[in-house]
C-alpha cells in the first residue's frame, strides 16, 4: 500500500497536536501512542482513556425482513435483541471461516446499526450486498461518522461531565442522543475489558468531541494500548486471531453462535461442536521473563517439534509478562500444557493458561 492510499480519520490533525506518534494500520494513518503504551494501558485499567475508532465501519440495515436476513448472515441470534440492545456476532464464509467479527445493535424495531472492522469495510459490504434481498436496505455510513471509545472505570464520570442529564445505556446497549439537532450514538461496549462506551458523531464534529472528552478527563490513548488491553482480555483481533480459515468454534467463540439458527457456515460449526474441533485458540503465558512474544513466532513442545505459531503476542503491561494466543492442535490445547516460544532462535518456556489473562482485582 502506498502512502497516497492511506486514509486519515477526521481526528488526525488533533492527534498530531496532542503529540501522537502516527503509524499506518489497516490502511489508516492512526495514533499508535501519545505518552507511551504502558502509561496509556494503565490509565485505561485505573482511570479513563479515549481512543479514535473512526476507522471502524458502520452499516445500517433496515426493513421488515432485516432481522431474518441478518440471521442468515450472522452467527448470533438477532431475535434475542430488544430495541436498544446490541450483541457481538460474526459473519462466516461457507466453510465456517470468519470473514469478520462485529457488533450489531437493534436501534429501532426494524433497523440495525452494525460496527465492523476497519480493514474489512469493503469486503464485508461486498459480501452482504451479494446476499442482499429486495426487502432489505443496506447502507454504508462509514465515512459519515467519527468514532471514539471512552474506556476505563471512570468513564461514567467523564460521560456525566458532558451529558449531566443523561445516563449511559446499560451494558451492550445503544442510545441515540440529539445534541443541537445532530444525532449521536452511544454504545455501552468496548474492547478493553473495562467499563466503557463507544461514541459516534458526525465526522465534522469529531475533533470537537475528542477535545471535550479529553477536557472531561479521558486521556488520549493509541492503538498500541488498545492492542495490549484487548489481548490481556483474550479478545480476538480479526486478521490475527480470526481468519477465513478458522471457525468461531476453533476460536473459542461458540457462545456467540446460535447453532439453532441457519446462518452461512452453521453446518460446519455444528459438526465441529459435535465432534470437537481439531485445533483451538488458546491463551499462552511465559513462565518467566523473556523477550516479548509476537505474532508469527513459532510454538514448540519443550525440546520438541514446532506445533504452531502465535497469532498475537505482547508484553502484558499489567503483569509485565509475555502473553500470547495461538491455534494449537486439540491434544495440546489443554490448560497446563508446557510449551516453548522461539524468539530469534532462543526458546522461552510458556504454558497454556485459562482465558482471560487479566482478571480484575
Amino acid at each position: 500500500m502506498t502512502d497516497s492510499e492511506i486514509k486519515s480519520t477526521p481526528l488526525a490533525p488533533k492527534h498530531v497536536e496532542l503529540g501522537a506518534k502516527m503509524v499506518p494500520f489497516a490502511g489508516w494513518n492512526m495514533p499508535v501512542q501519545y505518552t507511551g503504551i504502558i502509561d496509556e494501558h494503565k490509565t485505561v485499567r485505573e482511570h479513563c482513556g479515549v481512543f479514535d475508532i473512526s476507522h471502524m465501519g458502520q452499516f445500517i440495515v433496515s426493513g421488515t425482513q432485516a432481522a431474518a436476513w441478518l440471521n442468515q448472515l450472522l452467527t448470533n441470534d438477532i431475535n434475542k435483541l430488544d430495541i436498544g440492545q446490541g450483541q457481538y456476532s460474526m459473519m462466516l464464509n461457507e466453510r465456517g471461516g470468519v470473514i469478520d467479527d462485529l457488533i450489531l445493535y437493534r436501534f429501532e424495531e426494524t433497523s440495525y446499526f452494525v460496527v465492523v472492522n476497519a480493514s474489512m469495510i469493503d469486503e464485508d459490504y461486498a459480501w452482504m450486498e451479494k446476499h442482499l434481498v429486495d426487502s432489505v436496505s443496506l447502507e454504508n455510513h462509514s465515512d459519515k461518522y467519527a468514532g471514539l471509545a471512552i474506556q476505563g472505570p471512570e468513564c461514567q464520570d467523564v460521560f456525566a461531565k458532558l451529558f449531566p442529564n443523561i445516563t449511559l445505556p446499560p451494558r451492550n446497549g445503544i442510545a441515540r442522543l440529539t445534541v443541537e439537532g445532530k444525532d449521536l450514538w452511544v454504545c455501552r461496549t468496548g474492547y478493553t475489558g473495562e467499563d466503557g462506551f463507544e461514541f459516534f458523531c458526525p465526522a465534522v464534529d469529531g475533533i470537537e468531541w475528542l477535545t471535550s472528552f479529553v477536557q472531561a478527563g479521558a486521556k488520549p490513548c493509541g492503538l498500541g494500548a488498545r492492542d495490549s488491553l484487548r489481548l490481556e482480555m483474550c479478545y480476538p483481533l480479526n486478521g490475527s486471531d480470526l481468519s477465513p480459515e478458522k471457525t468461531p468454534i476453533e476460536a473459542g467463540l461458540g457462545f456467540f453462535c446460535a447453532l439453532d439458527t441457519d446462518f452461512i457456515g452453521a453446518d460446519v460449526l455444528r459438526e465441529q461442536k459435535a465432534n470437537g474441533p481439531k485445533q483451538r485458540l488458546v491463551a499462552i503465558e511465559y513462565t518467566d521473563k523473556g523477550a516479548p512474544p509476537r505474532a508469527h513466532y513459532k510454538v514448540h513442545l519443550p525440546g520438541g517439534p514446532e506445533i504452531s505459531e502465535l497469532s498475537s503476542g505482547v508484553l502484558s503491561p499489567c503483569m509485565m509478562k509475555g502473553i500470547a494466543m495461538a491455534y494449537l492442535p486439540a491434544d495440546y490445547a489443554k490448560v497446563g500444557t508446557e510449551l516453548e516460544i522461539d524468539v530469534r532462535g532462543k526458546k522461552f518456556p510458556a504454558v497454556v493458561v485459562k482465558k482471560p489473562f487479566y482478571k480484575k482485582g
Partner: protein
Amino acid sequence: MHDVPQNLLYSRDHEWVEIDGDIATVGISDHAQAELSDVVFVDLPEVGATVSSGDSVAVVESVKAASDVYTPLSGEILEVNEELSNDPALVNSDPYGAGWIYKIRLEMPGETDDLLSASDYESFCS
C-alpha cells in the same frame, strides 16, 4: 529536543559510540529511545562474539515492536550491560549512561570515520 552529547559519535541507525583507545562503548541515542518508548526487553550480544559493522548484534524491544541494534563497528564483544536484563528501562531513563548496551574491541578503528559527529547527527535527525 533530544539530548545529543558532544563527546560521542553517532551512527545513522541511531547508535551512539564512545571511543576509549581501541575499545568502544555502544548504546542507542536519546532520539532512538524516545521513538521506541517503554523499553521492556533487551536481547544482549554474546560476550566473545566477533561481529562486523552492520550486523544486528542486539535487539531492543518495546511493548509494540522489536528493533535491531546494528553495530556500527567491527570487532570482538568484550562486555555487555547485564543490568539491562533486570531493568531494561535504563535505556529510556539514561540512554548515554546506565543504559549502555555493549563494549567492543575495535578490529578496524578506521570505521569510526564513517560515524557522525554530534552536530551532524542532530542535523541527520531533524
